[in-house]
């Protein structure tokens, strides 16, 4: 079992991006003659799953934003209600993506440093 909290933090974004990149990755392998039908099936299936997940989370955010707007709606604040729609954006999606980018870049840089120590 993977450690951490499935579906939370940057892990969710990491796997979604990994899944979305699978068809492109498989295409590259196909150009190198390393692909096969079963791998294509997995790549397509997981990327479709990722799209469904993204769509569902986006839809949830939209729904929650709409509910929030309805609960707080006053005639003089219609514009702020419209801006409050899709609460996903205001819950830090961009922050999470930036964090993920930072973590990935950092670990890739660490990978480029020659490994002088090996713990046993």
């Amino acid at each position, binding site marked *: 079992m993977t450690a*951490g909290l499935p579906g939370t*933090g940057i892990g969710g974004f990491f796997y979604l991006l990994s899944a979305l990149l*699978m068809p492109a990755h498989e295409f590259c392998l196909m150009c190198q003659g390393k692909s096969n039908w079963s791998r294509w099936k997995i790549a397509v299936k997981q990327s479709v799953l990722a799209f469904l997940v993204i769509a569902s989370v986006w839809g949830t955010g939209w729904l929650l934003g709409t509910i929030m707007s309805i609960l707080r709606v006053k005639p003089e604040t219609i514009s702020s209600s419209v801006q409050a729609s899709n609460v996903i954006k205001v819950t830090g999606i961009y922050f999470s993506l930036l964090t993920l980018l930072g973590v990935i870049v950092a670990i890739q840089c660490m990978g480029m440093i020659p490994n002088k120590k*090996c713990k046993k």
Partner: protein
Amino acid sequence: MLPAVSPKIARSLTVIIPAYNEEKSLADTIQSLREQTVPIDEIIVVDDCSTDGTAAVARSLGVTVVCPPRNTGSKAGAQNFALSMVKTDFTMALDADTTLAPDAVEKLMREFISMEIAAVCGFVKPRYIRTVWERGRYIEYVFAFSFYKQIQDYYGKPMISSGCFSVYRTDILRAQQGWSLRTLAEDVDLTWRFYKAGYQVRFIPDAIGYPIEPHNFHFMSKQLKRWSHGFVQNVRIHWNDIVSIGYLRSLVAVALWDATFASLTYLIVLPLLAIIFAQPFFLLGYIIDAPAVLIPTILRRESKKELLQVISSLPAFFVLRTVNSIFMIEAVWTELICKRTFTVYEKGH
């Protein structure tokens, strides 16, 4: 590149079952092995000085029973004790509380198509789905194994070859000195050592095992503590090796970040924001990804009846996730900040 092994070559297999006080579950495990679609050459039950009838149950079923001179203190110790007795090309480690689908072994063995493949693991689903803790674990497993782990396998790096249900090439396993006792997650340690040595690990989602998961908080906490500390111990030991292994370094870095900062966000930041800004909507952060968890889980279900089970179990997932975050923070604090190693191995049931 090493030559591929013909699938027509006979595949001899020994199953090692480490067991400490497992008399209630052992018979079902052995029976599920007897019902496999491929023959198993030998089943070795390691009775780790049990105080119940574990050895008697195993002997009554006609399997090989071995008993170390004293309790080995861990599953790894028990498995290593039996490893020296294995005479077959392949070795399977199976928990004494885990039953298998009838074709599970066949599906795993089929994947050893190259000498570079050191281990193959399968999909794990809780056998019983009744209490909050079992339900939470059910959603957690189905989500992770149907989404995360298949992605890991596609990129050639399943993060863990699950200790409860994996098959190994015996010669490679022995060359790695078997299962190490230096961490509480010997399966993680072994998997990452395989990668360091240049071997491959595969995950087969169609090969299914059914372990008994902790049914109450007492046993769940023991298991979570062991897994949390085991993961962090392995990160600490393997870090310098992991950073040089492509996709694996990203997997581990992301998992460690989530174990630490996502846990802190979950437990401290979200409630603080809700209080400071007097906005309870911040608490939506606890469940806003419910659809993300639900979709892969629903699509993986095996029957219409399971759909209801998935939906009714979803709230338990969020309970388990919250509890898990507490143990992860404690493990990171203890192992990495305080540099104290937790070494007590306690079973989860």
